[in-house]
């Protein structure tokens, strides 16, 4: 279709869709009604059942842990997919030639950036670990903390570009971390099968509310997710960075 025809078709249909959405949204209750049945049950009983004060994390890692398993494997696929879709293809390698690849050394980074990286990175890692480990108590958890840890690793990676990062080693290590996290979360689920009666059944004593280890398997699951998300994000970012930094054609 021509751009005009495409926009025309879209605008007409979108107008129709807008009317439908308006009609449908008008049927939703306002902000003053009672909570839905499922939400009410969970909001009243979660803390007593799980001892973890953050009910959102209770839902994500216990009541609806299977959804989170699916979500973790989406992240897993995203990381694997980035490796697959961004790999250097055979023809690119031929085109570049090995001599030129040799010349494509990463650029030097300034001392200041390196210093900043050295100072910032450990702090960020500590923050990330805190967010992961306190998910059951306060806002945060494996996903958010994992992102923070990944940011720290990437800072080190960028700041440390002067050290020749051998392609292969760190990437493979990251893949190991990432898959260990993904597998770890699935194993928490299987643990429920072995030590209790159902997949993802919480098989560890929930402890007491407010303590760091409250929630039974929830902190465990959070750590697994944290590892997986951190690993995956590092993989994606490093693949993208590699595309930009390592190909900075110094040989030309």
């Amino acid at each position, binding site marked *: 279709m021509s751009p005009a025809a495409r926009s025309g078709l*879209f605008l007409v249909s979108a107008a129709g869709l807008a009317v439908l959405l308006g009609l449908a949204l008008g049927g939703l209750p306002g902000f003053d009604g009672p909570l839905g049945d499922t939400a009410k049950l969970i909001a009243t009983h979660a803390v007593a059942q799980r001892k973890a004060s953050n009910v959102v994390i209770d839902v994500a890692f216990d009541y609806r842990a299977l959804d989170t398993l699916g979500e973790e494997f989406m992240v897993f696929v995203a990381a694997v997919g980035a490796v*697959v879709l961004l790999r250097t293809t055979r023809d690119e390698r031929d085109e570049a030639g090995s001599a030129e690849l040799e010349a494509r050394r990463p650029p030097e980074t300034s001392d200041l950036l390196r210093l900043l990286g050295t100072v910032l990175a450990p702090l960020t890692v500590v923050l990330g670990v805190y967010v992961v480990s306190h998910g059951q108590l306060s806002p945060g958890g494996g996903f958010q903390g994992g992102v923070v840890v990944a940011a720290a690793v990437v800072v080190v990676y960028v700041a440390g570009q002067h050290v020749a990062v051998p392609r292969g080693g760190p990437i493979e290590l990251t893949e190991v971390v990432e898959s260990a996290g993904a597998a770890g979360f699935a194993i928490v689920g299987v643990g429920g*099968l072995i030590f209790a*009666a*159902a997949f993802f059944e919480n098989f560890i004593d929930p402890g007491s509310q407010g303590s760091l280890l409250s929630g039974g398997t929830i902190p465990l699951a959070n750590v697994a997710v944290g590892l997986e998300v951190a690993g995956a994000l590092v993989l994606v970012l490093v693949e993208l960075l590699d595309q930009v930094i390592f190909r900075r054609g110094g040989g030309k």
Partner: protein
Amino acid sequence: MDLAALAIAVPLLAAAGLVGLRPLLPRWGAQVLGVAAAAAVAVLCSIVLVRARDETLVYWLGGWRPRGGVAIGIGFEIDQFGAGAAVLAALLAVGAVVFSLRYVGETDDLFEALMLVFLAGMVGFSFSGDLFTLFVFFELTLISAFVLCGYQIERRAPLEGSLNFAVVNSVGGFLFLFGIGLVYGRTGALNLAQIGRVLDGEPADALVAVAFGLIVCALLIKAAIVPFHFWLADAYAVARTPVCILLAGVMSELGLYAVGRIYWSAFSGAFTGAEGELRAILVAAGVVTAVLGALMALAQTHLKRLLAFVTVSYLGLMLAGVGLLTAEGLAGAALFAVGDGFLKAALFVGVGVVQHRFGHVDVGPLHGRGRALTVTAVLFAVSSFAVASLPPFGSFLGKTLLEHGATSAGYGWLVPVFVGVSALCGAALLRAWARVFAGLGEPAEEPRTIESSGEEAGREGDEPPGRRPWTMLLPLAAFIVAGLAAGVWPGLADGTVAAAERFVDHRSYAVSALGGSAGPPRAAIPSGVPHWYDWLYSAISLGGAVLVAWVTLQGRRPARPLRRPLSVLRAAHSGHPGDYVAFVVAGTAILGGLFTLLLT
């Protein structure tokens, strides 16, 4: 039913293992792990299928049983249809992984890992009795499928196919989630049975109709129903053969399965009294898709794209079956999906062998060159006839049930449509077969754009040409045998109808999930198929297919009166993601509007 959970956990763990142990695992070790994991899923799902024979299996994840009819966690609700879909997916996955054994490329451990996640996604999708979990597995399936589609990044067409696939289906995901938000806002529930109980109370209003419309449109995108079908031809035509086996064999059909599942478990109570209107809408969409897909298939000279449009066309037939909203129609669609799924997988493998041998799949340049591939030629011909409903294959039995369902629902005019569509699709396949494997007729018109230029051509894999390893022919033969088994297994038709009776029983679904008292189970009437006239219909389909193939074989171009409409149709398949999204929005507005007007 811990086995059901294991059927999801095993492939996911194996996938994580394949990626994590990549430095340590030798290539053959990874392949063994891949095949073993897929086979384990097939075994697990088969046991689940057997156990689901007498009652619907309910499994509460995390042991969160419902309280007072309110679900707390996620429930699996597995009947023979869900378990059967999972078995089909797992068997096709085993075949696909075996096919890819001798089909070496780059980073292939990752390929197997992705296939296993893809499989786990489909299994989870088939088992789930929870609206949001359906969405999660919908997305997991989608994301692994589109990476698999784009696996060959050194070629252009897979890249574009993958992109269109991802964009259009992501939009489908938004619609799905928007619908979930509306439903949850109204019912406070995500469990399908619980949603059904809340909605049963009163007739549907605009919110319910629009929410249903959005969710159905999202699933019809997955099922490639016109006008949501554009991405499918692009993606399936360019994906590697093992991926196509799963995509065309089962993934799209799962969209239709979920339409049925969600309708009968959650919405059918709210739409009581409006079944006639809903039936008309769904059957119409199915027929349009079937006819359009068949015509587009006839217009193709690229083998995989041809198969993709045959897939679209048959998905239309299946939607018409599901859309009859009767147990018989649903049973027909399900049986047809299984038989056709295996046979289409066989055809894709056949095309894969051709691609393996000659490096491309354009009918024009391949003219007569397939004579060298005797076994493949014979098997390809058999599958083509079987797809055109050759008795006693599963596709024949399924279509027979479909036709009976249509007649008893008062849609007798569907029978000639089914017969005609089968004839056209069969003709498209037979004509391609005649050109490639027999060298009959004029060589096809100018080569198509995809993969036709020298740069794009490339064999799948590193095997020297000329060898057709048993790892390719074995799945081909096995899929044909499975397609045959789906037609001759004793009692299969009656069993499927009985299972469908349970599937469409709104009340007993809720009771098995959430407790309460059910009425007496509905007795299934033996289907008594096939009758003598079913053989006649099949003969007409087959004869028509041969005739149309023969006539169109003579000319290099389509007949004059057909040229203009065909060129308009083909121009609409522009490969432009913006176009496709505009069509999706238009389709959603139309379907949603019809639902709102007619069902409230």
